[in-house]
């Protein structure tokens, strides 16, 4: 906690404007937040609220001809918006993304192994074919994938969504992440595997002290993992605060509506996820 001074991620007055055929659309409007070491911050909102655009904008993964970014985004104290080249320094080295839909997230014509080794190579800590191979095995074992050697030779289409998400987490771990951006990491998955993925994320975060920016529409997920929750609506944060406060004493009607979508009991609810995921 002593390193709280320089936040892993510090965002101030961040806006994303999308230049579409229909005109300029301010998808993210002046949001500010910070994530300290080992902290998990969640942005929650309905689909279309701008939460995913926030995440992708922070990582500068939106097409340049589409999105105009403004404000300040500091990763470990360095403003990556002022100097667009700066973000490449962090990508794959300390900064990692866990995407929404694991089924479309990997190169379909390359093996799991080669993509994992590629990530290990980018991280740059390990050289040598043999060492990279054993690191790949180690990473897959950490995300609890069975019969690792066999999986490494497979192509993405041969694995299930849950398995692929584990692979993607392993790829994220290859970068020795200090900040992990998880963009609805379970929403595209079967309810039966969602729990496993969330468990894994929680465990990794706790054992390694990784800071996490969690994007979700599910208040159950948010409550389970977060220290701080920001509620997003139409591109703005309408309510922010410690997880317990947001969940137990929401100030805004919108937040109450999000809450009421989930039965109060239990850690998180599967059926509501399905219902919402489908919308």
């Amino acid at each position, binding site marked *: 906690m002593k390193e709280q001074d320089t936040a892993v991620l510090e965002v101030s007055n961040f806006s994303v404007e999308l230049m579409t055929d*229909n*005109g*300029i659309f301010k998808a993210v409007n002046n949001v500010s937040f910070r994530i300290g070491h080992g902290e998990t911050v969640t942005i929650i909102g309905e689909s279309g609220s701008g939460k995913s655009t926030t995440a992708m904008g922070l990582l500068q993964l939106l097409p340049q001809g*589409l999105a*105009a970014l403004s404000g300040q985004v500091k990763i470990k104290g360095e403003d990556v918006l002022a100097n667009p080249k700066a973000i490449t320094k962090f990508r794959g080295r300390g900064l990692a993304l866990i995407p929404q839909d694991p089924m479309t997230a990997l190169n379909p014509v390359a093996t799991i192994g080669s993509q994992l080794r590629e990530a290990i190579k980018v991280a740059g800590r390990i050289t040598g074919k043999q060492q990279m191979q054993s690191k790949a095995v180690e990473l897959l074992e950490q995300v609890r994938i069975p019969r690792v050697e066999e999986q490494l030779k497979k192509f993405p289409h041969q694995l299930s969504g849950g398995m692929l998400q584990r692979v993607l987490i392993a790829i994220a771990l290859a970068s020795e992440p200090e900040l992990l951006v998880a963009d609805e990491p379970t929403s595209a998955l079967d309810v039966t595997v969602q729990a496993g993925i969330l468990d894994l994320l929680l465990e990794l975060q706790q054992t390694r002290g990784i800071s996490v920016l969690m994007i979700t529409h599910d208040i159950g997920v948010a409550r389970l993992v977060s220290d701080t929750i920001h509620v997003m609506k139409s*591109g703005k944060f309408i309510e922010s605060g410690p997880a317990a406060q947001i969940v137990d004493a929401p100030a805004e009607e919108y937040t109450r509506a999000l809450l009421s979508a989930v039965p109060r009991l239990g850690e998180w609810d599967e059926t509501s996820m399905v219902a919402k995921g489908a919308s």
Partner: protein
Amino acid sequence: MSTTISNPTQAPQSARSSAVTKQMLKKSSAARRARSTRIKLWLGTILTLVVVVPIALANLLPIADPNMQDLGARRLAPLVDGHLFGTDQLGRDLLSRVLFGGQTSLMIGVLAVVVSGAIGVILGSIAGFYGKWADVIISRVLEAQMSLPLLMMLLLVVALFGPSIPVITGVIAIAQWPEVARLTRSLVLVEREKPYVDAAKTLGLPKLRILAQHVIPNVFKQASLVILLLLAQAVLLESALSFLGAGPQRPFSTWGRLISDGQDYITTSWWMVTLPGLFIVILVVGVNLLGDALRDGNLRRSSKKEGK
């Protein structure tokens, strides 16, 4: 998703505290795409009109009769003696021959597209709507035709049945219907899953009526986008047939024939091949550009609708 501030092609006037500058807006993908489409549309329209208007007005223009020979004025270069495009080996005015030849070429092209469009839409929608054996048969025929020595077959048919305008039109239509049929089939496959088709079936409407009155009109607009591209192809195909001697016979002198005739004089009279060829190129480029632009525009419009 309704906080639209302004159109990207206009300046953002109400953009309170917007970081988007005019410059960024101009360079945005949306604006650039729109600009490309607009330029293609204009260029295509101009090129097409440059060729089509004189052809349409050929009978009214003060030009010589295309078949009037003047052996004293053989192979005059362009601009000599009032012949804008020069004359051919029999002293006939080349501009007049190109314009009147173009009437035949265009007429065949349009007719061929109408015929191939009709065959393609009907067979394609039957394959898509009824499925099963109808689909199997039509799709097989489509596939088979794709792997056929097409130009050879067309030449053969023309050689056997004579190079009359109906035969040539029919031959070009046969060459082109698969493209329309494939497109229509895939459109109908999507369309038939829509709720209104189910509703109509539940109401007990006969399938044929649903297809003819509802499904086909709905896919027709999208399918019709290929018409311009087909027309371009048809003009090219006709000119190739004519060049090989399998085009309409005298008195019709289509572009391919003009080029074929002029070929013998290419070293001394470049215009006899070059100018008719340029006419084809300008027309086909224009029509293709128009087709491209309309398709781009349509894609964007449909993506806009989905975005709402």
